[in-house]
């Protein structure tokens, strides 16, 4: 604790007046704090009446960091010039967006969550397909565990085909070093999903196992074929098996509740409807992503009777529900399901009312680790309303909150549903209880996922 404060005072001191560090140590904690406050106030006064800047700067100063002495001054300079350009009383978008950036970096809690930002300068040899993909990821044009994995693998196929082994090197050894910066670039755009991680791990295994004696084009073709097989076997066909298995659990007259938009659940419902089953669907949605709207459009266009409501209203409708079907981002060995934020609420509510909760999940989404809570690893949704493509009656910026002096926006994208709230997990190897995840590799005939 003490050291943190000392750091703080050092920062504050550096950008303020020059004082010998010795006197800092002789002061009591309270006196040091007072000094800090004075310096902060002094900074705030020296700026335009953009109070957010002062608060943000203080936060920036509060973080113990090595380049800190330069950043507060740098920020001060930048804000100074911007402020000079805009109207003093203006809540101009430029100031706000810069302030937004700084305040987001200043999140007190959960600062370890990845905040999506446009990927920086592409360092090194990044393939244009990967650049494009990174941009699509960071703008949430492609979202969803399956979609991201398929997009990544397809992009990698292009990269592999365009790759030329440098002389005195073998494909099996060098290709991986070639792919690593591409992967890093994608991760900088948006943190990697478990599906992407598993797929890339499998790809690395295939690359290192590829035959050294094969001519280059053959090796590349073989790799592309393996990628195609992976997509086909573990995603496409797995989805078909899940559709069939989960479809058996849907009976005529059922009311099915689903949350946000899962590609697998969408397929299950469409197929059950195509088979002639009579059921209705309740789509539960939540801000800021409002993904349920797309699912609603798809389901109602084929004629499934749907109801749409927002997450806070689940309690009033749960007694009407026969079964809850949700998708997953990943599944962990303790049986917990990592899925879109809000899924845990729906599952726990359903459990309270004895409604079975069925998670539809392919086996390639399994992650070996144990996750006990939602905040050890998570992501933040970007500010602003990127997601809605539907016509709005009010302008977008009136609907979204922006960061202000005393307001931090925290929108985690994922949450963890405990295994006790889940009744069954439908995978392509069958319906299993969540506590038996560890038996899946056995079912697939291999030692790891």
């Amino acid at each position, binding site marked *: 604790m003490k050291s943190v404060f000392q750091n703080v005072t050092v920062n504050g001191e550096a950008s303020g007046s020059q004082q010998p560090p010795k006197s800092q140590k002789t002061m009591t904690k309270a006196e040091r704090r007072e000094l800090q406050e004075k310096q902060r106030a002094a900074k705030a006064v020296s700026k335009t009446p953009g109070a957010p800047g002062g608060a943000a700067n203080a936060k920036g100063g509060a973080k113990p960091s090595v380049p800190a002495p330069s950043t507060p001054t740098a920020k001060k300079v930048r804000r100074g010039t911007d402020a000079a350009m805009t109207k003093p009383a203006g809540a101009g978008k430029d100031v706000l967006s810069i302030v937004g950036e700084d305040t987001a970096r200043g999140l007190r809690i959960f600062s370890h969550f990845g905040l999506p930002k446009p990927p920086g300068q592409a360092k090194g040899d990044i393939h244009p397909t990967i650049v494009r993909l990174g941009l699509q990821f960071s703008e949430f044009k492609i979202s969803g565990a399956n979609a991201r994995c398929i997009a990544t693998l397809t992009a990698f196929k292009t990269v592999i085909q365009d790759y030329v082994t440098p002389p005195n090197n073998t494909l099996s050894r060098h290709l991986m070093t070639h792919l690593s910066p591409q992967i890093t670039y994608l991760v900088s755009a948006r943190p990697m999903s478990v599906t992407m991680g598993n797929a890339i791990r499998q790809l690395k295994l295939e690359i290192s196992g590829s035959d050294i004696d094969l001519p280059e084009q053959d090796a590349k073709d073989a790799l592309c074929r393996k990628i195609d097989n992976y997509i086909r076997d573990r995603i496409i066909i797995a989805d078909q098996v899940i559709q069939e298995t989960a479809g058996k659990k849907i009976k005529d007259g059922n009311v099915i509740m689903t949350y946000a938009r899962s590609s697998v659940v969408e397929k299950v419902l469409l197929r059950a409807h195509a088979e002639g089953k009579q059921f209705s669907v309740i789509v539960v949605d939540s801000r800021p992503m409002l993904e349920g709207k797309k699912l609603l459009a798809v389901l109602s266009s084929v004629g499934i009777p749907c109801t749409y409501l927002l997450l806070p209203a689940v309690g009033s409708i749960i007694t009407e529900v026969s079964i809850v079907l949700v998708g997953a981002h990943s599944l962990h060995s303790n049986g917990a399901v990592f899925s879109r934020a809000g899924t845990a609420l729906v599952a726990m509510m359903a459990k309270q009312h004895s409604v079975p909760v069925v998670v539809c999940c392919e086996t390639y989404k399994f992650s070996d680790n144990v996750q006990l809570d939602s905040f050890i690893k998570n992501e933040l949704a970007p500010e602003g309303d990127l997601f809605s493509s539907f016509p709005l009656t009010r302008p977008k910026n009136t609907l979204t909150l922006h960061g202000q002096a005393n307001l931090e926006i925290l929108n985690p994208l994922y949450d963890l549903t405990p295994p006790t709230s889940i009744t*069954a997990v439908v995978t392509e190897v069958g*319906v299993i209880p969540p506590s038996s995840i560890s038996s899946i590799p*056995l079912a697939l005939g291999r030692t790891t996922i």
Partner: protein
Amino acid sequence: MSQGEPNSSPAQFDVFVTYQSILQNEEISTPLAAILTLTQLIEKSSAGTMFELVQALNDGAEILKQRTPNPISLNAGCELFIAFVTLFPHDSDSFSDLKTELVKQGRNYATEALTYRDKIAALALGFIEDDSVILTHSYSRVVMKTLLRAHERKRISVYVTEARPRGLGLRTYDELTAVGIPCTVVLDSAVSYVMDKVDLVLVGSEAVVESGGLINAVGSNQIAIIAKAANKPFYALAESYKFHRLFPLSQYDLPTHNPNVLSFPPASVSTSLPTKGAVIGSGLQKITPAEGSRSMTQEQVARNPNVDYTRPDLISLVFSDVGSLTPEGVSQYLVGMFAG
């Protein structure tokens, strides 16, 4: 160990008749009878390839399922055997050799399976302490074996539920008192009344399912819930061939549940009032001393289920010939058994 001979003409093999005759043997339970029937089917079959054989087996199993009112344990046996046949390594050149081998394996399995009940009894014995009071439900051969075994070395007393409508609990009562075990029949509705006096609950099973839950005669779920509330252990005894890959999400997701169960009769003005002064509609009934109690009509009984599903979190342990499993362990075993 006896095997029923098909009593139709040798040229025609009637699956269902064979099945019935095998079931005549008291010791053989439905899944084993199914396995033995299918073994005989292989013997009599004229299939030339594995594909045809599996097809014939599936058809035979289908016939059996359709003609049995409660096919769950039958399914378990059939699926186990068909999975075994499909996964059997067929590197023998002659197909008839393979068939002979399969038949031999089937019969060996059935013979060995008859020892499973003893294994389970030996396992469960360790959990029964001297001077225990045990509650059991209806009639189960494996529970009977366990209780008789326990009686040889320890003092036990048993409460058994009546298990309406079939009243099989009375059979348990007869058999236990015949060997000198103190036994009392309790009403199905008196289970919560008696639960605090009980040390442990032992039930048999029709099937143990993928979730780790239990399918057994109707009433088991109630007993499990009461045992949980009273903090008493609830043990299920099941042979490994009763493990089934079914996964019911609720009572109404069972294959035995149909729209007729728990349905309301069509509304009609009833003119058939009981003649001894009972008043319908106000719910009051005067029971005259000479008359005694009333019982349900056949039609009313038909609207009731035969089996129910007990959730895995209510079950303490499942005792089986493969060992004592937690409900979670059942799924792991099943996956291992049916995986490739």
